[in-house]
């Protein structure tokens, strides 16, 4: 049985429930015959991928839904072999070059060239070009992006690229200026509510409007997360009422607990204790940025107003360090220690 998120994912542009202007625009682009390279960006859970797939269907018809997964082997210049998965249909390919880390340039160059140099074989195909969808384009290295640059111009008769990214900040300017930027904003809370309402109706679940609103608020305007929460609530409870608790994910519960502990006692012994918790989170593959951010917002909500800018300042500072440094636990711990210090001095009325 598939999850709600996958089962109810809209398959066509008409089925999309929010951002109607954007859907119109994508539809007319697909029909115009002069389809540009696209750079689709927006926060996660906003529906970027759904829109791209719907656009592809608009471009090529139902053929794009017959997909297969290939494992390809690429060889780097230093003779290292890379295994790389490609999801493809007759008309399009979907790749996540960030999977192979710093070797993404090799994959981008070889694969795209290969695709670009072969023409569309199927004569009955609606379009002459193939589409390559690149996931997580903002995680591409500079080299790989520079390699894309020339490919985009040279092979434009046979190839169109659709880049998916969370933010345009990490995408180099030459790429940005060669693509049509499409911003997909996160759905508003009322959009989420209506999506949940639809989902509930399709599944035949008794639902409560108040709960839907609470889920929408809790999800932080992330539709995927909202749907997952929605499903898990109905899986766990026999009867759902307005007051049913929304169970937070385990890791979030743990971070909340950690925040409580930090606020309750500021001492080296407690720091050691917190350290164990942080390690616990890290070993469960929670990204360090997520840990730091969640912890910060939990802490900020509970300290005095005067202290808030400082907490944010140090949080941003150590987040930067995490990105530059190599061992994340140092920086997470340093943030906790710093927080304890400023909180303690604030309580004691000292200037910090």
């Amino acid at each position, binding site marked *: 049985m598939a999850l709600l998120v996958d089962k109810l994912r809209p398959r066509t542009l008409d089925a999309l429930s929010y951002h109607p202007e954007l859907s119109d625009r994508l*539809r007319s682009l697909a029909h115009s015959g002069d389809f540009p390279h696209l750079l689709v960006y*927006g926060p996660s859970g906003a529906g970027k991928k759904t829109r791209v797939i719907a656009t592809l269907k608009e471009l090529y018809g139902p053929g794009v839904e017959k997909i297969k997964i290939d494992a390809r082997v690429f060889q780097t210049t230093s003779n290292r072999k890379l295994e790389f998965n490609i999801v493809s249909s007759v008309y399009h390919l979907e790749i996540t070059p960030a999977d192979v880390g710093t070797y993404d340039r090799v994959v981008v160059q070889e694969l795209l060239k290969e695709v670009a140099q072969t023409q569309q074989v199927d004569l009955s195909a609606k379009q002459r070009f193939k589409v390559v969808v690149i996931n997580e384009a903002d995680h591409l290295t500079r080299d790989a992006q520079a390699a894309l640059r020339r490919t985009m111009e040279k092979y434009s008769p046979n190839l169109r690229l659709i880049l998916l990214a969370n*933010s345009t900040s990490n995408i180099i300017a030459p790429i940005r200026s060669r693509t049509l930027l499409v911003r997909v904003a996160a759905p508003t809370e009322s959009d989420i509510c209506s999506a949940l309402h639809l989902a509930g109706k399709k599944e035949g679940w008794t639902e409560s409007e108040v709960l839907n609103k609470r889920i929408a608020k809790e999800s932080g305007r992330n539709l995927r997360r909202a749907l997952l929460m929605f499903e898990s609530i109905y899986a766990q409870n026999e009867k759902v009422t307005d007051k049913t608790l929304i169970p937070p994910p385990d890791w979030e519960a743990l971070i909340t607990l950690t925040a409580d502990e930090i606020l309750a006692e500021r001492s080296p012994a407690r720091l050691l204790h917190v350290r164990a918790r942080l390690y616990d989170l890290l070993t469960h593959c929670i990204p360090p940025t997520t840990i730091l951010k969640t912890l910060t917002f939990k802490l900020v909500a509970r300290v005095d107003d005067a202290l808030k800018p400082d907490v944010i300042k140090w949080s941003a500072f150590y987040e930067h360090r995490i990105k530059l440094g190599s061992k994340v636990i140092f920086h997470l711990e340093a943030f906790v220690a710093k927080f304890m210090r400023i909180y303690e001095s604030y309580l004691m009325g000292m200037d910090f």
Partner: protein
Amino acid sequence: MAASFFNNKARAAAIASSSSKPKAGDNKEDSSRLQPWVEKYRPKTLDDVAAQDHTTNVLQRTLQASNVNHPAPNTWNNEITPTSSLTCSSTDPPGTGKTSTILALAKSLFGPALYRSRILELNASDERGIGIVRDKVKNFARAQLTQPTGLDAAYRAQYPCPPFKIIILDEADSMTQDAQSALRRTMETYSRITRFCLVCNYVTRIIEPLASRCSKFRFKMLDTSAAGERIGNIAEQEGLQLEDGVIDTLIRCGDGDLRRAITYLQSAARLVGATKPPAAKDADDDAEMTDVGSNSSVITVRSIEEIAGVLPDNILDSLVEAMQPKSGGSVYEAVSGVITDLVADGWSATQLVGQLYRRVVFNEAIPDIQKNKIVMLFSEMDKRLVDGSDEHLSMLDLTLRIAGVLRGN
């Protein structure tokens, strides 16, 4: 023809008329529609190059000189000013017309018949290591000139066809030191039959021995009126209808980079042209819409800003408003609310930093001493974003700290 022999303007007009002739037929039209406008509207002659008067004047004179001395090619060789030319702009943004100028020069020197055999153009995306310099560049440089047959006197009158080849190395500052040193000797040995032209953004990245072998041309930043005229031209030729202020917006979003501005214009035209057909179908009674050619919808300022990813003013206003010191309590709630929405709407942090900077620094109401502190914050934040820090935290930190400075501590 003889009258226009010394007259570059007339010659340019002749080229323009001759090059516009073969543009007939459906196939050609189709390919030109798919072509980026940046390529389509690249200046064809030196006169077309916008706003680089000093450089084009010198080059024009070179052209003229080559023309005068044309009957005696040998003396010509010694007299022509640049042995090799180095076009550069030291701190300017890209898109000021360096490549365009040199291509226009090459075209007006050789004309279409000789262009392929006399020009070698390499840019950064081609492999340009030391191997290529030793192999491809050197081979091209030492090849003897071919005298094409079938060039009549009229062609020679139109194009001077000087007896040398030109190698254009675009984006030369990204060549390795080794590759550059390998060029040194090649440049001198074959200077009789080959001229080099290096184009770069930073002249300091060209090694000294190379730089000293070249005469340098500096390109200044495009001024807004010239750029605006150019964009207006293109819009006219493409039959676009622009709302008032669109051109200004394009130039502002392009930051002095004409190429970027033109690309934005093309994207906007695509969107407007693309959204049009269904609209026309829906409203068949709207007769004027369907009458006025294919790209008749109006391009608005907002659509340009949306394509460039520019934040709308009202969002910035609310952010600036939230940052103002409040009489009671902290600004945290207001600021974090705005920032959370910004992140959820998917606006890019770099864009926010840029626009906020302009807002704050040019705001007369903020005392200079505070601006000093704020500018330092911007510098730090830009570095963080380049390092790939989390955008939400960084934006929140920046705005809260600016609010702190505004409050006066």
